């Protein structure tokens, strides 16, 4: 019962999914995802949609969240990216799936960032919300400071920091993903590091 309540509350926006899930748990229906049995062969090497989603969707979601500072929009971006994966069925090289997903996500985030609506409505009220594990609450000021500082960076610095430090891509890979020169990536990384240090020192002084 607790599980049902948690699902209902957690997915209050996806009402249909919650209802279907409750039916499934109470033995009155099939699993909500069972109506989409054919999710394999997304033309990404040997990985199916399910595998790609399990492996990379959270990374896409979190990078988008870092970029936009808004959970709903980050979920929308993640949704767009994976819908694009299904509908366009791009030919992805094995091992390059994550790069493709993050590249598409960053492009989408950039579009949203540039749009007047997000500047006025969302970014006019900045605030990076943490989603910590229950036992981590209260002992994560340092972590939050770093995450918030990354969120406050300008998009061009934020992109390279997230891809380099968070997602572990090399400078060459980042240059390819963002279609910029490697020197530009290195330069942005250096300046982003400097800005982060300044931000974090400022927080420490406060």
């Amino acid at each position, binding site marked *: 019962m607790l599980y049902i309540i948690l699902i209902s509350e*957690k997915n209050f926006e*996806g009402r249909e999914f919650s209802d279907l899930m409750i039916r499934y748990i109470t033995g009155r229906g099939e699993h909500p995802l069972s109506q989409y049995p054919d999710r394999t062969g997304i033309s990404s090497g040997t990985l199916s949609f399910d595998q790609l989603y399990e492996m990379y969707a959270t990374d896409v979601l979190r990078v988008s969240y870092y970029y936009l500072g808004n959970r709903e929009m980050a979920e929308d971006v993640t949704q767009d990216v994976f819908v694009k994966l299904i509908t366009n069925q791009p030919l992805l090289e094995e091992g390059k799936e994550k790069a493709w997903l993050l590249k598409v996500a960053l492009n989408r985030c950039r579009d949203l960032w540039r749009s007047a609506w997000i500047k006025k409505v969302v970014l006019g009220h900045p605030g990076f919300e943490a989603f910590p594990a229950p036992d981590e609450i209260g002992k994560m000021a340092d972590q939050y400071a770093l995450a918030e500082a990354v969120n406050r960076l300008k998009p061009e610095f934020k992109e390279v920091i997230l891809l380099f430090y968070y997602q572990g891509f090399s400078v060459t890979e980042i240059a390819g993903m963002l279609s910029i020169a490697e020197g530009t990536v290195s330069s942005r990384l250096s300046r982003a590091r400097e800005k982060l240090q300044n931000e974090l020192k400022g927080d420490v002084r406060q």
Partner: protein
Amino acid sequence: MKKPEDLREVSDQVLHGLTADDSLKFRILQQAAEGKGKELRHGFHPLPVFCTAVAALLIAVLVLNSLKPVDPASPAEMNVFAAGADETAHPVDRQESISLSYVLNTVKPENVTSVASSGIGKTEKTDQCAALIRLLQEKAVITDSADPSAHESLTITFTDGTVCYIGAEEPFLIGDVCCSCPSFFSQLRQYVEKRE
């Protein structure tokens, strides 16, 4: 103080509760399914289909119109073809012509503005025209003995612009029906000669 190098670890802690769950996956699959439907609908272009339908309708109307049976009693739509008559003798607007049977049965004589025969001549005096129509209506005898090789034509014009274009081979008038009326021709000849 944390450094950028700690970002992976920090993110796992700070954003621990921010995960892509089954609910989001469901949304994605649902939207992808709808998107595929939309893609199919994108293949449907309403304008060409609409234009094709309109064109087909127009063609159908034209074909049906051409197949429509001729109603001898409807003067405005009647085309009268004189069998063997010289149609160029008195060129008239075929679209506004009316039938011989209509002239014989329905036309008011005072509504005729001219009567012209390619062999005899033409009168435009309304009283003479009316007299000629009365003669036709009173004296003409419907017959099937008309000479199909008639080479004259008779044109009767009405006040509203409609025209009766029929073949003539004295004493016959040849249209949707054939009739014989020698007095019509002699009277018309008299009027024409008197005018000259």
